[in-house]
Each structure stands twice: as structure tokens, then as C-alpha cells.
């Protein structure tokens, strides 16, 4: 489990206020997913998301990550829906005992197009914005600080837990426990691996809580922020325009098309 979700680049896209990036992505998703035709998400992917990805200088990683997300899914949906699409009547080909259904193919195509947009837009955001910055921006716009805290703290805790899991696995292996091999072996490996991991993580909670208290976590005052994160008037205007535009567009799609 590598932490490869954020790529630091010196692009213009990277310097945008995180909330602006979030709004761009959300607006695209709204317009794309409200459309009944799969052409719209596909088109948005090509004419909006792809250029932004290129601007953010993360094209290669974005392609890789999108492929990893989409490929197993695309294969599965194509296979299953062209073969078994419920109620399909037109088949365009048959392979042995199976008939390949036209409706199923279209359905699979539409689903893949929508998912391409969902994954593509989402990855644009994830790969170019550190979650801590995103939470920080949301906090500046009214997200309760405690919620921002748990999100970032959890993220930062993952590698620590990961390291602990590995050291436990090593220790258990040294004692002759097998965690690879047959199904039963793996099931048997479950408890000695996970029990110490979970129990030790839980036993830290009390000290973590006290340490938070010792740093005024529960103070009921307006918090300030050490790390500067600048929003601009212009971006704020753009955001509002995007939100309104997207809503109008999506409504039009649903009502007219």
C-alpha cells in the first residue's frame, strides 16, 4: 500500500485554491452524470478533464491510475452485460451457446463512460491536491475543525499502522506462522496477525486523547491557522459561476434531453 495519492508539481492547476479544484470537478461530474447519453461524460472527459490533467503535469500517473481503476471493471461489465443483459432481445453475434446482446453492449458502454468520468475527474483531484490542504480549505469555509482533524489524522496514521502490521507479520512468521498458501492456512493466519494489530492500535487511543487535550483540542474558541492557504476573489467568483452554470446545465439535460 504505497501512498501515491498526491503528486507535487509546479503547475498552475496546483496553485489553485483546493476548493476551486473541488468545485471544478464536482461541476463536471454533475453535468456529466445528469446526462442520459453516454456521449456527454465521454466528451467532458476528453475536452475538460484531459486538458486539466495535462495542465497539472500528471498525465502519465493519471492514465496509469485510471487504467487500474477502470480495466477490471470495464472487462467485467462488458462481459457480463453483453452476455446476460436482462430482457435483451437483439443479439449481434453468438459465441458457442452464448448470444452477445446489443442492448447489453450499449448499457456497458454507457456505464463505462460514466465511470470513466467519475474516476478520471476524481483522480485529477486526488493526484493534484493533498488531502490535508483540501481539509484545510474546507475548514476555512465552515467544515468543523474536528472533522477536518479526523480525516487528516487518519490519513497520516495509515503508514504507521502499515509499519506496525508488517512488524507483527514478521514476528509471527519468525514464530513459524504461515500467512501464505492454502485457503485454510490463510484463514488460520488471520487472528494472530490482526488481533495484536487492532488491540495495540486501540490501546493508544487514551494517550492520544490526553495529548490532544494537552494541546487545547477542546478549546471552544475560533481557531486560527498556521499554514497560509490563499483564496482569491477571482477564484471565488469563478467557483460561484461554475456552481450556477453546472446546476443550470444539469437541469437542462434532465428536462430537455
Amino acid at each position, binding site marked *: 500500500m504505497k501512498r501515491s495519492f498526491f503528486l507535487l508539481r509546479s503547475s498552475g492547476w496546483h496553485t489553485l485554491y483546493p476548493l476551486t479544484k473541488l468545485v471544478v470537478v464536482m461541476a463536471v461530474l454533475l453535468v456529466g452524470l445528469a446526462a442520459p447519453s453516454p456521449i456527454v461524460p465521454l466528451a467532458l472527459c476528453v475536452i475538460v478533464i484531459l486538458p486539466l490533467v495535462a495542465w497539472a503535469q500528471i498525465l502519465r500517473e493519471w492514465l496509469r491510475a485510471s487504467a487500474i481503476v477502470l480495466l477490471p471493471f470495464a472487462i467485467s461489465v462488458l462481459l457480463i452485460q453483453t452476455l446476460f443483459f436482462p430482457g435483451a432481445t437483439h443479439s449481434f453475434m453468438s459465441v458457442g451457446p452464448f448470444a452477445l446482446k446489443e442492448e447489453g453492449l450499449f448499457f456497458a458502454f454507457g456505464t463505462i463512460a460514466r465511470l470513466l468520468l467519475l474516476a478520471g475527474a476524481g483522480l485529477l483531484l486526488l493526484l493534484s491536491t493533498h488531502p490535508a490542504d483540501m481539509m484545510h480549505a474546507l475548514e476555512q469555509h465552515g467544515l468543523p475543525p474536528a472533522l477536518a482533524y479526523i480525516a487528516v489524522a487518519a490519513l497520516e496514521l495509515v503508514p504507521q499502522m502499515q509499519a506496525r502490521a508488517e512488524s507483527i507479520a514478521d514476528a509471527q512468521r519468525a514464530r513459524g506462522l504461515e500467512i501464505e498458501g492454502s485457503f485454510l492456512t490463510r484463514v488460520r493466519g488471520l487472528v494472530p496477525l490482526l488481533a495484536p494489530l487492532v488491540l495495540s492500535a486501540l490501546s*493508544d487511543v487514551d494517550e492520544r486523547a*490526553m*495529548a490532544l*487535550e494537552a494541546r*487545547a*483540542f*477542546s*478549546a471552544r474558541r475560533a481557531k486560527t491557522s*498556521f499554514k*497560509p492557504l490563499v483564496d482569491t476573489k477571482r477564484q471565488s467568483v469563478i467557483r460561484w459561476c461554475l456552481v450556477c452554470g453546472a446546476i443550470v446545465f444539469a437541469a437542462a439535460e434532465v428536462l430537455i434531453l
Partner: protein
Amino acid sequence: MIRFERVTYSYPQTKRPALRDVQLQIDEGSWVAVLGANGAGKSTFCAAVAGFIPHHFRGELYGRVLVNRTDTAATPLSELVTQVGFVFQNPLNQFSGAKLTVAEEAAFGLENLGVPREAMIRRVEAALEWMGLQTVADRSPYALSGGEQQRLALACILVLEPRILVLDEPTSQLDSAGTREVYDSLRSLLASRHLTVILVEHKTEWIAQYADRVLVLNEGAVVLDGSPREVLAHADLSRLGVNPTRYTIAARAARDLGIWPSDRGLPVALEEAVEGFRLLQEPEGIRP
């Protein structure tokens, strides 16, 4: 100044008190070491000084704890933290975990208190400098060595500018190099700032060197209270589950063998021990 007025405390759903009738006063600027066997109540004592008892741990508290004349039970924890700072054992558990750099981590407490940004920057810089961490200010807290991490934990507390510092086994997770780093930073800090320190530490050699008062707890009660010399050389120390310093042990062994004069006190620190053993070699008459 800290005052315990007949403090007895039991954790929720327990009968046996974890602190028993503790009555004492700690003057400003003193270094107090707290010793005792496992479960003697050292951490509980610390928690009571810092107000975690009764704010964080419920349970039954009798008597009063006063910090700078205010009753801790009547002051919210978030206000107490600017008077009493608390440093724990494990540095990793003390970090907020939600900050990506050392400087941001150090600022966390100030953010919570709503300190303006300019003041925050100034205080963070000062605290990092006291702890010798200026050069790593932009690194991830998790990329530091153990000793550095514990110094950062200290810096995180020092930014709040407490007058009293409570340290509960701050070096138990560190090797000797890390321990030395932490104590050296602490010493230089105290030389420049008049802080009161309450320290739980099993390594009595360190205490002999730094503390000017030692408390020994047993089953929640203060059983010994005095200067390091009195307490660390006390005959009951081992019985109370505390290891005397290796110098005391050596001298006591020498006394049991009849080499060390029984009317002479036992040393607790290295210099005294050296001096004591040196005197043994000189003829009786010319001892100063």
C-alpha cells in the same frame, strides 16, 4: 506554585484510591522527581497536577488541587494547558497526526487557542530553537529520530508557554543518546526560563543529577519526600520498588563489606561517589 490539599482520588468503578491523602506544596522553579513502583500512582499524580483529573478521567476526587491559586477542578482543561504542560511517554501518540511538518505540528496547540498568526510564528520559532529543532522545521514529524521526536513533543507543549511542565516518563521509549538529547535540551531551557518541572523517571541517575526534590509514591500515598540525597540513599527505596542509583548501590555494597564507614552518608551521584571512594584510600586522620 502547586498545592495538593488532602487529595484522594479513585478511578471510576474502582474502590482502591489511586491517590491517598496527598498533601504537599511545590514551589515555583523547583524540579520535582516522582518515583514509585509500577502502579504506585505516578501517572495519576501527574494527571492530577495537569487537571486531567477530574476533567478527563471521571471518578471520585476528594480535596483540592491548586495551580497558581486556582482550583483545577473549576478551570476548563483548555485554559489549564497554558499553565501546566504535559509530555507523555510515546512521542508518536503525542503528535496531533494531522500536520505535515514539524513547524505545523508545533503550532497545533496555538491554532486551537486561536492565537493570531504572527504571534504563532514567533512562538513556534522560539520553541523549536529551545529544543534545537530549527533545522528540521520543514520535515515530517515522522521522519525524525526518537530523541528529536520527543523534543518536538516538548516544543509542542512549550509553545503554549506553561509555567509548569509535567513529564511522565519522557525518555522511557528512547535509547541513551535520545535520553541525553532530551535532558540536555531541558536543562538549557530551564537555565533560561524559570519553569517548575515535575518529572517521572525510572533512571534515577538522571534524577540525582537534575532534581532538587524527590517524591516517592506507594499505593497512591507519598511515602518519601525530600532532597535527592535524602531520598535516593534512603534504606527503604528498594522496598518501595525504586532502584537506587548505581553509585548508591556500589557504596552500600562497600558499606556491607565494612569498607565504607557506616557513619558516612551514601552517595547518589557520580561525583560524590568518586569523592567518597577517594577518601577511603586516605588515612583516617587527615580527612578534611
